[in-house]
């Protein structure tokens, strides 16, 4: 059984349907720990 399958696969591999499976995207939910620009602007104003 296995031998027959191997032969079939080899001889007709170009005619066989290849099932395309895509990778699903990663889901990473986030929170920015900082806002550099805001903090720096505030402090720049504060320092003068």
């Amino acid at each position, binding site marked *: 059984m296995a031998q027959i399958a191997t032969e079939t696969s080899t001889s007709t591999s170009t005619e066989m349907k290849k099932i395309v499976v895509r990778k*699903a995207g990663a889901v990473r939910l986030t929170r*920015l*720990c900082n*806002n550099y620009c805001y903090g*720096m602007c505030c402090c720049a104003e504060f320092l003068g």
Partner: protein
Amino acid sequence: MPTGPVALHDLRYLDEGDRVVVGRTDCDSYGVFPPDGAALLRELAGGRAPQDAAVWYTDRYGEPVDIDEFLDTLRDLDFLSADGSADGSADGSADGAVAHAAPPRWQKLGAALFSPLAWACYAALVVAAVAVCVADPRLAPTRGNVFFTDYLLIVELTILFGQLPFVVLHELFHLLAGRRLGLHSSMHLGHRLYFLVAETKLDGLVVVPRRQRYLPILAGVVADVLTASALTVVAWLTRHPDGTVPVAGRACLAVAFMTLLGILAQLYFFLRTDVYHLITTVLGCVDLHTTARELLHNRMWRLLGRTDRLADETRWDPRDRAVARWYAPLYAIGYAAMLAVLVFIALPLAWHFLGTAVAAVTDPAVPAARFWDALLFLVASVGQLVLAAALAVRDRRRSRPS
């Protein structure tokens, strides 16, 4: 090829019409299958041997299938158990051939956190916060709340460290909303461009029906709103009899304001914030970010005549490809704008602070406290940039094929 049934891990299927997302939630490995591929996988999972499944496929769809390559794909996705045969399955069963994963911890806590009773409490808290702001407009969130004391050092430290527990709370809400659905979610420190971010890995959402994904995606913003509301109410509770707010109450208002600012930062959707995931869920995308990035890269390589470097466009999901046409320019503009902010605003300001610090050191007339204020701020800000850069290097090393 195995002659008997193959052992598959416990798989979850999400049928979305023209595609079926299948994956393991225990180790976060997911693939997007065409409907016929998913049907073939179900036959294998049902205990049919690969040879029989191939014959079944031919009978059903009228053409032979490359079953060897399909098994290789399943192996790449870690869907097959260690030796790939039914005898090696976790429960030792030959039929059905499914290795079951343990449910995640804190599932009940997640359910309680988003129960109707909890939602009623959250609504009451937000209403209370709005009410105290209406009663005393000084408690309303404004930019001036940040400077709750004349001591800049205290402002810096409060903003830097006062937010941390609430950043964790934001991620904890994501995490528990995922656990509630039986997903193995986890928390990490990461980066987006040069921003340091706390992130919750919730890859398992891809096998959850889209309407059930909104709560885990929005749970973090819910936590932010509750944080700002609770801090505002606490500030109101600390008021003196004459109506003035003590420094502790004003510190609460400062952190509340920064927390609300964190919600606005979610609008940087091109940095793959929560709003990005919200948009892609609404639009029915699979991996918009990667498709948009590859689309831009391919355009660049075509312009440079380096067609050997093109990404394989046949692997893009049709919906991702369609949305990427207008998303890719926004993504590029967003990144360019953020880099422009870094180069033209953030770094010059950091340079200004360095100059201030050096001037304070060399000028004996400048109070030492003022110098240390500026220096600590600089160290904290640059330290975060360095940490973000270190995480970027780490991620790049991890993503390299071994």
